[in-house]
């Protein structure tokens, strides 16, 4: 008989279905990245043209982060909660530091160079914000404070990093942090009337933001969304080519490694933000829907795990991370298929890139930790 509290006991009671889904998506992502760099027959030689390094790196990163995630899942929830504020405060300090001494990449300051390591603190905030909010609410509820006023400091916790990230400027990440934070506040029970009022305000604010708050290049991306054909060689080029690739995939796609748009380098950033175009071109509508379904299943499981936790911290942190994932998927696919402006958000577990892999896998570690600790109605009294 294995004791439940032992490491072995914890491992056996991991959320295996969630793990399996993640692995499935990541394996699919690896295959897609393999295809992104290779082609079944080189147009000049006719022979297969294989470049496996992208896929290999992706798989290696995923395998490493999977071990990290499982290790993190074994950490007690109390540890997550106790780290929430320090991580949040570190993140905010680093965001300020980026503002002061950041590295400019593509005209936006997003990176902080610390020795050999390049950090992107805005990415950290995607997890730090829901964690900090969850701890805040947990302690509030524990202390019996549940008036509407508690949402005001919570909103402050959200807005500080959002404002800093917007300054970089990184609209996509700022929107994701804002969305995640507002989702946690929503789950924490803010009045529906206030929610309705905020949404009404947001709708009114959209044109104001468009005309007064956006940078020129951001406004151009929005314009492009509504009329991609107007400037096919400029801002609309990437989107136009992406839609051609997706549309020409049809129902069943052109087949694995047979995508032609891909082979001719028509779509910039195809292995990162625009990876979905390869899925849609090579696997068609069926493949696109499969990806949506896989992510749908993942999110449902996430919400299920969050809902089963007996602690407010677990429920709110878990659902906050699920909201982050949902935003990733909706914004990425939405922008690639021309429903949302192009803001530079990758598709988790499939897009090539280390940062998003790190964020998402740590998040899954958190989710699995919440699952293992679902029955503990922990007290955070005495924790700083």
């Amino acid at each position, binding site marked *: 008989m294995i004791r439940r509290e032992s490491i072995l006991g914890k491992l056996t009671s991991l959320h295996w279905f969630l793990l399996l889904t993640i692995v499935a998506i990541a394996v699919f992502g690896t295959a897609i990245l393999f295809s992104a760099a290779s082609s079944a027959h080189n147009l000049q030689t006719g022979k297969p043209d294989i470049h496996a390094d992208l896929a290999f790196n992706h798989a290696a990163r995923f395998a490493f982060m999977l071990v990290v995630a499982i290790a993190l899942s074994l950490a007690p929830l109390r540890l997550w909660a106790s780290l929430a504020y320090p991580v949040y405060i570190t993140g905010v300090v680093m965001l300020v530091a980026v503002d002061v001494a950041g590295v400019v990449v593509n005209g936006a300051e997003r990176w902080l160079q610390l020795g050999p390591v390049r950090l992107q603190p805005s990415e950290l905030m995607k997890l730090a914000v829901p964690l900090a909010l969850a701890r805040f609410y947990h302690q509030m509820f524990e202390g019996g404070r*549940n008036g509407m006023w508690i949402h005001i400091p919570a909103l402050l916790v959200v807005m500080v990093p959002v404002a800093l990230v917007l300054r970089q400027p990184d609209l996509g990440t700022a929107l994701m942090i804002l969305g995640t934070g507002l989702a946690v506040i929503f789950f924490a029970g803010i009045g529906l009337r206030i929610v309705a009022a905020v949404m009404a305000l947001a709708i009114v604010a959209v044109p104001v933001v468009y005309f007064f708050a956006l940078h020129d290049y951001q406004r151009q991306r929005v314009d492009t969304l509504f009329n991609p054909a107007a400037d096919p060689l400029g801002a609309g080029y990437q989107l136009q080519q992406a839609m051609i690739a997706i*549309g*020409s*995939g049809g*129902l069943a796609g052109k087949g694995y490694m047979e995508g*032609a748009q891909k082979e001719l380098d028509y779509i910039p950033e195809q292995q990162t933000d625009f990876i979905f175009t390869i899925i849609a071109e090579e696997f068609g509508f069926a493949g*696109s829907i499969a990806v949506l379904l896989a992510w*749908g299943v993942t999110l449902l499981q996430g919400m299920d795990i969050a809902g089963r936790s007996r602690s407010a911290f677990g429920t709110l942190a878990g659902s906050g991370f699920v909201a982050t994932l949902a935003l990733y998927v*909706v914004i990425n696919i939405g922008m690639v298929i021309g429903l949302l402006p192009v803001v530079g958000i990758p598709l988790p577990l499939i897009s090539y890139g280390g940062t998003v892999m790190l964020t998402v896998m740590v998040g899954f570690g958190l989710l699995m930790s919440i699952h293992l600790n679902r029955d503990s109605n922990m007290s955070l009294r005495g924790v700083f």
Partner: protein
Amino acid sequence: MSRDWSRNFPSRRNIFLIGGGVMWGALTVRLAELQLLRGREFETKATENRIRLDPAPPHRGTIYDRAGRILAGNKRNFYVTLRPELAGSLQDVAKVVDQLGRLLPISESKKRTILQDAQTRARFLDILVADDLTWEDFARINVMAPELAGVTAEVGELRSYPYYAAFYHTVGYVQRANDKDVTRMIQADLDSIGEQPDTPAGQARARAIRRLYKHPQMRVGKQGVEAFAEIGLKGEPGKTRVLVNASGRVIDRLPSDDISGRPGDDMVLTIDAELQNFAIQRFGTESGSCVVMDVQSGEIIVMMSTPAPDPNQFVSGISQTAYDQLLKDEKNPLYHKAYDGTYPPGSTFKVVVGAAALESGAVDPDFSVRCTGRTWFGGRFFHCWEKRGHGTVNLHTALQKSCDIYFYEAARRAGIENVAAMARKFGLGHRYELGLTGGKAGVVPNDAWKRSNMNEQWFEGETLSVGIGQGYMSATPLQLAVMAARVAGGPGAGNSRLIASGAKVADQTIAPLEGVSEDTMQRLRAGMFAVTSEAGGTAVRAGDLDPQGLLPAPFTHARMAGKSGTAQVRVISAAERASGVISNADLAWRLRDHALFVAFAPAEAPRYACAVVVEHGDSGSRVAAPIVRDVLAATLKADPGSKPAYSPARQVASAPGDGEPT
């Protein structure tokens, strides 16, 4: 723990999930729209995306002479290209170029240009390494190609000029187009269809033309007929379907038979290539030009300028040193002396002065002057070339002996305005549009001309200089040929033309010769006949074109009638005249007099007119007249005007099914 909160959570979660479901639904609907409803549309776009139409250079039209000999044709061109991206790094490219240098004649400067191109241009573009290769060179590269990464040996077409230097000026040559040529061709093309350059259609056309002229096989006419008729000769480019990727790299060529272009129009010139060659050989090492015209039709039979470079060396690009040498040559080989060269007509102009004096009534046919070798006018002496004087001369003997004193007086009496008007009637002072680039009008001076060009009134003393074809007076050899043809009469004498078919030359604005009485014309011809055929004539040794009676009828024993001219290049001072004029033989070549001669033959029933200018040739009667005699004798022998000009279309017309002429 708050009861409120945990009771609320399930409903909040449901709201969240419903919201998520709506978004997933929106994504699904959009994907269905793109992939299921509009799939076919995007598939077409994807294909269009990848297939580019590249211009394929059309077959350039051939230029024939009047007998169907090819003056400018196309030959097979073996050429070699290098694609840097296939060769490898820049060091690899340099190595390949070195290897090529051992197999092919490539100069060091050409090698540097290739390496520069490899560095600066997109690496997937072919660089032309060498063209116009011999079959042996081509075969050697083909054999070695597998070891030379990125090197391709190809076969195309290249312009060739079988008569070498003979038609450098008149037919011209083609060369790789530079940016200025491309701009010029875009302008010409847009003008020809009346399109504005800033409309979408105009911009598309400009792009297509730019792409066409950037093709390694494409050339543009730079001079002569080649340049003038570029649009017609060029034809319509075909298109090659190529598969390209996003950066414009050609991945594959696709079948493109259905979009072949239209070959350029063939052209036929009125020139007789053999006679032109004969004239050039007759000039030998002399520098000058010769024009022969058909008096009946106005067709130009010979239009040459010598010396000339070989136009073939321009087609593949002439080296800077060779070109500099041509520029520096004091015999001006790059200059079309017959069309662009203006010379004082000298004594050949006396024909016009005589006509002006007679027609204006200033003198009557029997008017005579006494020539003592010089005459006093306006405070200075005007000299006759014959220091001892000609005695008493009238129009006939003055023409025969080329007496200057008579024509000083004739010009003075007629007045400059009458002389100028008569010069224009005989075809001087007008730029003839023949269908080639260049062309000068020369100068027929009068009071108005002098006021607008020199801001000064006309002085009567200047009329005297014009009277012997000097002073401000200047004319091209072509104009002198026209003048001779007009004196000779004949229905087509006024209508000079060079292009027999293949290109439309802008309407000519030449006024026909009218208002000159037949009596005057007879006297001019008689005077010119006396020059070559009556004792005492300046060119009496050159008059007989057929001393042995070998020419076919009606040219047997033909004689020519002509007029010599010797045009001074330098001013002879009074001091020099006093101490004795320096003889031409003692002068530097470039200071010697030009030798001119104009003539028509046969004298009694003129058929051909000819003008020759031998630059610094010393004496018109001694140097130029024998050349004219030999050229006209050869022309009479060949009699090119008796046969219609070659028609390349005729061969096509004789297709089966054509009935007998009824």
